[in-house]
């Protein structure tokens, strides 16, 4: 009897699993259609000449060009720069939000989220109005006599970085804030009762416990920024040329789809590499935490 009941239960469980799997089929179908097929198409395109014959010439051309490598360096500079500033600005902000009273925290959160609901194009042009030579910021600076000449705040690397940080900060903040809010306040009190200063509490309790959130936020920032196009195109003044702009140039000026596809694949590999690196680092830290707990 019990054996029978067991098999019946197992069959039930199997049926249930199948049912849930079938529920996810439409989503899988859409992912396959919208993500995988275009990638397959791009990979195929990267091996075609403009005439449609198979070749590895596109790879030779792209990988031997100094332009590709300088674009790669710019891409990494922009992404890592944005990430560093997001960590520097976002972590204390998340800490402040997590320790504020719920009502205040909700209000502050609304301010943080507000820019997320605005189109990136609008926000980027908004920065142009603020940062340009006769813009609000420079008018205030020269008007108050702080600087004699308007500062070059836009149409360069600085302006691009400002625009990108502004876009990414809320997206970085969310997982960090969530992780910090979930920290048991008793742990912080316990550390304080054992004589830890605020700095020590942050270093030994809060940061290790929110490391997961900071990592998730970092991955989000990196993956978003690596393909950023609008912000460098509008705020970079033609001088900031990451891979995304190189791809656009290859497509629109040269109509060279093969080389553009190679550049796209390069971007994809870069993203995968960074993803793996982040995950490995995360596991390493998690492993160390378990280790210390046992010791």
């Amino acid at each position, binding site marked *: 009897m019990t054996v029978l009941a067991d098999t019946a239960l197992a069959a039930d469980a199997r049926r249930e699993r199948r049912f849930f799997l079938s529920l996810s089929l439409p989503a899988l179908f859409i992912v396959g259609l919208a993500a995988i097929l275009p990638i397959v198409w791009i990979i195929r395109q990267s091996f075609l000449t403009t005439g449609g014959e198979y070749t590895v010439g596109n790879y030779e051309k792209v990988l031997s060009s*100094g*332009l590709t490598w300088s674009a790669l360096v710019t891409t990494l500079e922009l992404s890592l720069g944005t990430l560093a500033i997001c960590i520097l600005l976002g972590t204390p902000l998340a800490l402040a939000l997590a320790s504020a009273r719920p009502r205040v925290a909700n209000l502050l959160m609304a301010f943080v989220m507000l820019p997320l609901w605005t189109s990136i194009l609008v926000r980027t042009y908004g920065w142009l109005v603020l940062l*340009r030579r*006769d813009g609000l910021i420079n008018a205030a600076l020269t008007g108050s006599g702080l600087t004699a000449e308007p500062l070059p705040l836009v149409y360069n690397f600085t302006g691009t970085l400002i625009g990108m940080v502004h876009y990414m900060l809320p997206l970085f903040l969310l997982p960090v804030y969530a992780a910090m809010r979930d920290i048991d306040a008793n742990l912080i009190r316990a550390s304080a009762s054992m004589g830890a200063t605020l700095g020590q509490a942050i270093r030994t309790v809060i940061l290790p416990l929110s490391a997961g959130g900071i990592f998730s936020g970092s991955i989000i920032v990196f993956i978003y920024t690596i393909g950023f196009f609008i912000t460098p195109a509008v705020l970079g*003044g*033609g001088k900031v040329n990451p891979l995304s702009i190189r791809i656009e140039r290859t497509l629109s*000026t*040269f*109509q060279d*789809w093969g080389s553009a596809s190679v550049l796209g694949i390069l971007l994809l590999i870069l993203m995968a590499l960074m993803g793996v690196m982040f995950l490995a680092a995360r596991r390493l830290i998690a492993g160390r935490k378990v280790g210390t707990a046992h010791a």
Partner: protein
Amino acid sequence: MSLLLRISLAAIAVSAALPVYAQTVTITTAGGDYGNAIKEAMWAPAAKELGFDVREETQSDGLAALKMQVTSGAVTTDIIHLGSPEGAQAAAQSLLEPLDYKIIDPNSVPAGAKSDYCYPFDSYGTVMSWNTKTYGENPPKTWAEFWDVAKFPGRRALRANAQDSIEIALLSDGVAPADVYSVLSTPEGLERAIKRLEALKPNVAVWWTSGAQSAQLLKDGEADLVVTWNGRAQTVKADGGAADYTFKGSVIGTDCLAVPKGAPNKEAAMKLIAAMTQPARVAKLTDFIAYGPVNPAGYEGGLIPEDRLKTLATAPENAGTSVFSNADWWVKNGEAAQKAFDEMMAR
């Protein structure tokens, strides 16, 4: 007799049905003020005359869109508006149908500008423009002076593209307008142009990527000296911006209309091109934007008012110092020139 009757009945039925099934033609332009000007002056009245139902699509990058449509086999547009170098490039990649010069008047284009694939209808100059607050009565007058940062300090803005920039660079280096392309055709000539641009690079505040952006830079005073298209400079000036420009040393280019390979309504497209580029219509275009007709007949019979002629790159009094952009040269050497330019930018 009954057969004839039946045929005529059928003919009546067909002609009665015609207004319902009006010929539709899709046209793709760059949009914006320019696209609107082309609509108001050219294709809207032509469509009305022909009884066509014209649909408009806009694309800031016509050639990329054209290539996408033709190579994917999903051609939705019948007429596409391109710059002549892009038109020549598209023809070289067999993306275009040959123009039907039985429908379009072959004598409406001067011999030098004629193309088998893309019909040139208007012209513009890539000109030097400046902020009148910065330079007052003494702006730079030549490209050599544009390059002279000691005599004319100020922030420059150039297009982030080799096109027109390398021609201008050579003019600034003392090359005569007539010799620009023969000099550029030698490797040393191209290098000379690139070196010249590189020398100016520290003083270039912005390398712009769209015509609208160049106008904005001029209008806002973000840059003091801007290389832009005369239509854009004229619009800023007319809007009361502290800006002026000169046709001296301009690089004259033309825009053209083409029919994509495999366009759904090829013949109707040819008819619409012929109708929308009638002299009166291309002359009317100058009501909206300062891009003058390619067709010499557009300048005849007072179709364009006397005072407006001065604002057109191709007006007789503006000729002489300018260079005509050579579409064929760009098809042959464009990629190498652009690569050299991009490498200069990355250095």
